[in-house]
């Protein structure tokens, strides 16, 4: 099963390497990883999506907790949560295709953020499944390039991950 693990990490050199190293060392799987400082500059917030049997996920959270720089972590998929990913996608857009792509982008609430005579660059935000649906709808033949941030997640309601 897919899990979203959200981590508060000391914003120190080498901390990221320890997290990534742990996954490599123990052959855990990382699907996406995002990290950036929080409103408190001493802390970074990291979101990792991973998948595996329950025993492995339990080990992942326990091993992460053992890292000295990990201040706190939560498996967001254990409760109600929001997840978002941002994608920039560059597509061929010429002739009749141009209008069709614009329409598809509108349906997915995408924004065209850069335009040339033959190319649209579209920005799209949503759950991973939505981004994948868009890629499928556009069709692989007109995609020139995609770049995705990976998942960011947060718990719904009053629950917070903070120190």
């Amino acid at each position: 099963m897919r899990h979203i693990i959200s981590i508060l990490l000391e914003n120190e050199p080498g901390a990221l390497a320890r997290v990534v190293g742990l996954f490599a060392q123990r052959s855990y799987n990382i699907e996406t990883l995002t990290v950036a400082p929080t409103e408190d500059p001493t802390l970074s917030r990291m979101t990792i999506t991973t998948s595996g049997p329950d025993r492995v996920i339990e080990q992942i959270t326990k091993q992460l907790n053992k890292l000295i720089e990990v201040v706190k972590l939560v498996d967001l998929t254990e409760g109600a949560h929001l997840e978002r990913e941002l994608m920039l996608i560059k597509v061929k857009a010429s002739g009749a295709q141009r209008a069709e792509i614009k329409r598809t982008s509108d349906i997915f609430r995408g924004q065209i953020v850069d335009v040339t005579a033959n190319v649209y660059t579209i920005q799209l935000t949503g759950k991973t499944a939505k981004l994948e649906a868009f890629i499928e709808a556009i069709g692989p033949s007109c995609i020139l390039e995609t770049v995705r941030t990976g998942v960011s997640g947060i718990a719904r309601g009053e629950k917070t991950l903070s120190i």
Partner: protein
Amino acid sequence: MEMLSGGEMLVRSLHEEGVEYVYGYPGGSLLHVYDAFYNQSAVKHVLVRHEQAAAHMADGYARATGKPGVVMVTSGPGATNTITGIATAFTDSIPMIVITGQVMSHLIGDDAFQETDMMGISRPIVKHSFSIKHPSEIAEVVKKAFYISTTGRPGPVVIDIPKDMTVPNDRHEYSYPKKVKIRSYTPPQKGHSGQIRKAVELLLEGKRPIIYSGGGVVLGKASDQLRKLVRELNYPITQTLMGLGAYPATDRQSLGMLGMHGSYEANMAMHNADVILALGARFDDRVTNAVNKFCPDAKIVHVDIDPSSISKTVDVDIPIVGPMDNVLDEMLEILAEIKADKNSAALPDQAALESWWNQIEEWRKRHAGKYDKNESGLLKPQEAIQGLWDATKGQAYICSDVGQHQMFAAQYYKFDEPNKWINSGGLGTMGFGFPAAMGVKLNFPDEMVVCVTGEGSIQMNIQEMSTCLQYGIPVKIFCLNNGTLGMVRQWQDMNYEGRHSSSYMESLPDWGMLAASYGHIGINVEGKEQLDQAMADCFGKYKDRLVFVNVVIDPDEHVYPMQVPTGAMRDMWLSKTERT
């Protein structure tokens, strides 16, 4: 406030931590620090002949004393040479501080002379690591390093220090912090009382109970509590390779070691148990055999200080995370409370326990540490270890290398005290035993310290004979010489139809001459009589000398029992021809 250079701060900080010996090797990036050593006498430096040995010396010291060993080496090859030693300590959860020099900070990343990314290379095998960014951080980092290394589940901590952090004329304010707090690091202080009570109740319900204790009891300094609990319950106990000595091996309730080369009775009792109390043990693959066949009828209580050890390989019914001494104290209190209550329904079923003990005594008779004696006229390794036990009355520190001799020592040297059996259990590092023994002997000069080794392992750090000469470290090297890499050969005999691929040690030196060339004593032993004489000399007229005892043993001997691969705990070879 006092103004000190980074090098002086480092040495002073080590002194503040009560460090008496640092094991190391100087080099370019640490010359400022070594100069700071020169100007004081509180912290002594032991110059090894290879950095790996420095790490093992520190490790041996830590295992014997429970205090962290300190290693200091230069950048590049100095640092990388310690890697095996750090990994050895990490796998067995041994507290250790490894201070590595680094090239000047402005050169980091330039592929400078003797530069290596020690932070990166050591990352998977340390509990934590620090890189010094400014000299004024040194005292606090040392304090944090000792705190992290010695608390919770212990482990090695690396401190990487660029040369420009230790410049003599670059002085900064120094004061050693009294306390340290790390917001993201809070080792458990106490087990969950509700869980502990449930665990005691479950234990008392057991009709076929067993206690399975490991290195965590030794590291957690909980041997006294363990002894009380085992006796209070009158339950059998088996110990892992790492746990030997926490409970006395010569006691009636001890079933010896369990696992791949565990005793027949220990493995049978585990397999048939209905309740297992696992204490500071990690259900290692060398213990469980095939996990899916492990102890099918048992409910398991697992006490460990590291939550990630719990349900890692085997699912447990009652997990307890906490310091071993504290959890066992609480178990003893609850047990006393239950026993005091005459009406309690929770008291153990004495009849069931008696029939369980009867069954165990039956198992005990079957193998009972048997081995064929003197079939070929050569000494048997088991006999040699028993001779060593007799000569030392079981009181020596035994620092083992890795291989058949290690298993024979674990099986036949009956450890009655914790911290006296010192071996690389988790990583299985050949070359560990000799320097580890040196670390122990240096700190316990009046104790008998023996390195049990083979002619394969000893050659992996033989150069330290020179260090022993320089510092007068009279360890005894007890080399079980079968002229072959015994454990490899055993597997080749059992699984590869006797094809001894690269397991034969040709071109062995004359051990007596080798020892003599370093100024030590060498004794050759063939047969029991010579063994007894050699032992008498080792601990008698050569008490204060390093003695290399070359014990010629039967090369065809295998270690038994041996669990059958992919089988259950109870599936064992008991000899070359007898299987369960």
